[in-house]
């Protein structure tokens, strides 16, 4: 997978639920997806324009995880988001 900067897809509507869950709806595919608490943190970071490394640091700050584990979590989710067209590579 590309290591470039990722941004939420403009056709995605995100809805935060109870502060620890996020539902994503792609207006093109009309598919819903659910993000758990960790996924929601990553999504919020994406919305703020943070890059992978900064997102991983934010995960480390919030949760008791190693840098390696945090980076892996970010990569796995970002890849899945791109695959489902919920996020896209940002133009540099």
């Amino acid at each position, binding site marked *: 997978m590309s290591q470039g900067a990722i941004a939420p897809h403009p056709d995605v509507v995100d809805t935060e639920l109870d502060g620890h869950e996020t539902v994503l709806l792609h207006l093109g595919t*009309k598919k819903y997806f659910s993000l758990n608490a960790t996924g929601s943190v990553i999504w919020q970071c994406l919305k703020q324009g943070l890059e992978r490394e900064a997102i991983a640091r934010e995960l480390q700050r919030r949760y008791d995880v190693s840098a390696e584990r945090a980076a892996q979590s970010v990569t796995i989710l970002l890849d899945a988001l791109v695959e489902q067209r919920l996020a896209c590579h940002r133009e540099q």
Partner: protein
Amino acid sequence: MIRLVVELTDRCNLRCAHCFDDRHAGTGDLPDVVLQRLLGEASACGVTHLSFTGGEPTLHRRFREIVRDTVESGLTFSFVSNGSTFPRLYSWLAGHGKAFLGVTFSLDGARERTHDRLRGPGSFRSVMRAASICVARRLPFTLNMVLTKRNRHEIEAMIELAARLGSGGVRFGHLMPRSPGADDLELSLDERLAAEQEIWDRRSRATVPVGMAPGYHADSPFFPCGPLELEEFNVDYRGNVTLCCHLSGNGEHLGGRDRAGNLAHAPLRECLERLETMVAEYRAAKRRRFERGALEPRDYSPCLYCVRYFEETAPLQVVRPMVVASAGEDQESACHKAR
């Protein structure tokens, strides 16, 4: 069993191109005294369900208490919403169990641009967020689309959208005549009929329930809608008990002929009895007109006939001023003359 459509407020946070000005004039909420009477007398009058509308009903300053009191009165409830306030309501709403029969979101376009052009920027995504919440929290919801010239071509897309969003169904309705500024939105009679035919055709292939709000063309001139079957009536935000939610907002132009009384001054039972009389008179008059062969093609679209009927029988009607300044006159003096 009677259902009451209750306009909780005429306040709204949107300014939809096709809405009656009276509906979002922002002049008031349904008074507490009316609500207390309504909830206190509803069950004894055979009312089992309240459907809250507006304006945006969730903007009523006591919306939560009203819902609580409704449930405690043994009634079920539902409401119509533009979805914008739903993120603040859903977790509380989920606690009402079987008393909550569902929410209908107003969605006037299958495409974001179409809907937002009618209802304002961002309003499409508000509905999508609300739908997302309903799906995630398993709350029942449906969609309602008012047919206009701007969205009439999206009927098929709307049905498909409803199905893919997980909506419990989609209902189409016609724009009521006399919506101010809606002349460029209102379908002609032929366009109405064509849209209806398309809806009926597509309904058989749809994977979600598809319906039309009463008001579509009927072969019989004696169309059995909720109010005329004495099953559903309307309470406007001022406490007037009126015949039909479709006519509400038209009331000023109908000389108030669709009103049976105001709950601030009269018991609900008395108002409902007047409505029964009103419906009997209406039916008799329509039958006489039918037997004279005096019904016109548009009279087979029930809401259009109702507007005509109440206009014709209104002793006093409000006339919308159309002020045209003649040469040499400024607008202000022309307005003075019009008064």
